[in-house]
């Protein structure tokens, strides 16, 4: 057995790349990474001439909390809605009705190719306005869902197309109808493949909901901005904001990684 050198604590030789890494080593290196991050933060903030004003901002705790809950609500609703929209768009793309295909393609390319900020502004101040529709929450929710739905439709389409031709052959051979083929053969296989990507999309969706603040929807970011304006403080508002989103996205990211691992083992 080789004597452990300092180098062996931080470095894996190419020969050991496929071996599991001892948890002590993992922990050590994680701590080191956090230490480096802390160092950067400490240095940056120490250079800042800033009067911290946590107490004043702390008084708005409930306001933050309400915004955060609203963000959760919007995200969950948008997740359901965007999955539904994505599914419809993906199926429309494979429809026999050519106009549907074109509409779906146009929708996906336009939405994916333009900034969400522009879409939200446009949807609220032009489209919703034209229909005399003033409910910010609904417009915001729909816009965010349409935005995410475009990405989700591409994920779903990829999943559907990844189900092999031999499976479709088999489905036809046993006499399944088109709808039954989707229901019993394509979707159950596609869902396993796309679940990690969908979960990742959800994490994006949560962060993207922050842009709804531009049409004054009272979600987490907007509320933080309000407090910031009222109390003339910046970082006391934005730091909790960052953590508030991280609490939501981090579990999803970890779940995504777990899902990816599981799919890898299954195939």
């Amino acid at each position, binding site marked *: 057995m080789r004597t452990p050198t300092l180098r062996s604590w931080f470095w894996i030789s190419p020969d050991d790349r496929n071996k599991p890494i001892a948890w002590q080593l993992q922990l050590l290196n994680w701590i080191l990474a956090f230490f480096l991050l802390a160092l950067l933060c400490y240095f940056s903030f120490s250079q800042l001439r800033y009067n911290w004003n946590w107490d004043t901002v702390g008084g708005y705790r409930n306001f933050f909390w309400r915004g955060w809950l609203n963000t959760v609500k919007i995200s969950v609703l948008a997740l359901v809605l965007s999955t539904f929209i994505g599914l419809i768009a993906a199926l429309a793309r494979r429809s026999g009705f050519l106009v549907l295909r074109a509409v779906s393609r146009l929708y996906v390319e336009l939405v994916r190719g333009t900034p969400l900020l522009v879409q939200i502004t446009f949807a609220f101040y032009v489209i919703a306005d034209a229909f005399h529709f003033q409910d910010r929450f609904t417009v915001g929710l729909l816009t965010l869902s349409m935005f995410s739905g475009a990405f989700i439709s591409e994920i779903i389409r990829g999943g559907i197309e990844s189900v092999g031709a*031999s*499976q479709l052959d088999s489905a036809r*051979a046993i006499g*399944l*109808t088109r709808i*039954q083929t989707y229901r019993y053969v394509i979707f159950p296989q596609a869902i396993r493949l796309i679940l990690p990507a969908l979960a990742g999309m959800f994490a994006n969706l949560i962060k993207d909901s922050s842009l709804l603040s531009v049409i004054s929807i009272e979600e987490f970011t907007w509320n933080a901005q309000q407090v910031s304006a009222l109390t003339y403080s910046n970082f006391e508002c934005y730091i909790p904001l960052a953590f508030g989103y991280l609490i939501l996205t981090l579990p999803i990211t970890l779940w995504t990684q777990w899902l990816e691992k599981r799919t890898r083992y299954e195939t």
Partner: protein
Amino acid sequence: MRLKATNLSKSFGSQIVLQNINLDLDQVHTLALIGPSGGGKSTLLRIIAGLEIPDSGTLFLNDREIIYREKELMAHRRTVGTVFQAFNLFPHLTALQNITLPLEKVHQCSPVEAHQVAEAILERFGLSEHGHKPPAQLSGGQRQRVAIARAISIKPKLLLFDEPTSALDPEMTAEVLEVIEELRKEGRDLVLVTHQMGFAHRVADQIALLSGGQIVECGPPKQLLDDPRSEITRQFLAKILKY
């Protein structure tokens, strides 16, 4: 079965796969399609199975014309059982569920009934203990036997085998061929594409040799394999029997 093909042709793009296939067989239980790769045997089988649509020509099965429109084809496919070279089982379902799916969703069996039918067939093929396993946990031979079980569970009027042993090693080939031979003995009607000449000789009533998209020769095994009339057949047999 009675199988009658008239001027069947099929191309994929510019490649002609079948060219004016004519066949008139009566009182045949087992038809084996043999011939070199790319000769058109699988395509002919898939046309009989209703999985491929011919460009022209007609096909009669038991004196009923197969109408090559999606609606009629679906009805046709529900009356035949097709077994593929690559098994084509559904990987997300267990062996048992692979069999019950068509019974329940296509043939209107109750879940209990479908389950009973599937268990009985699995038991017959010696696969009872594997019913709960997904295909990934089965050997190639077991997978193909599950695929055959799925095909016969619906009581098809015709069974079609597209190179059922080409993806298997010799030992597993034997276990699958035994099952097919047993089905033949039951008096079921079979069409099979195969490279196993010995097997074709043993089970087939008629053998058709396809090459270059045409039926070069068709006749009883004894005559076609032992005393071929066509030069192409002779060359083909010489080539495959050499090793």
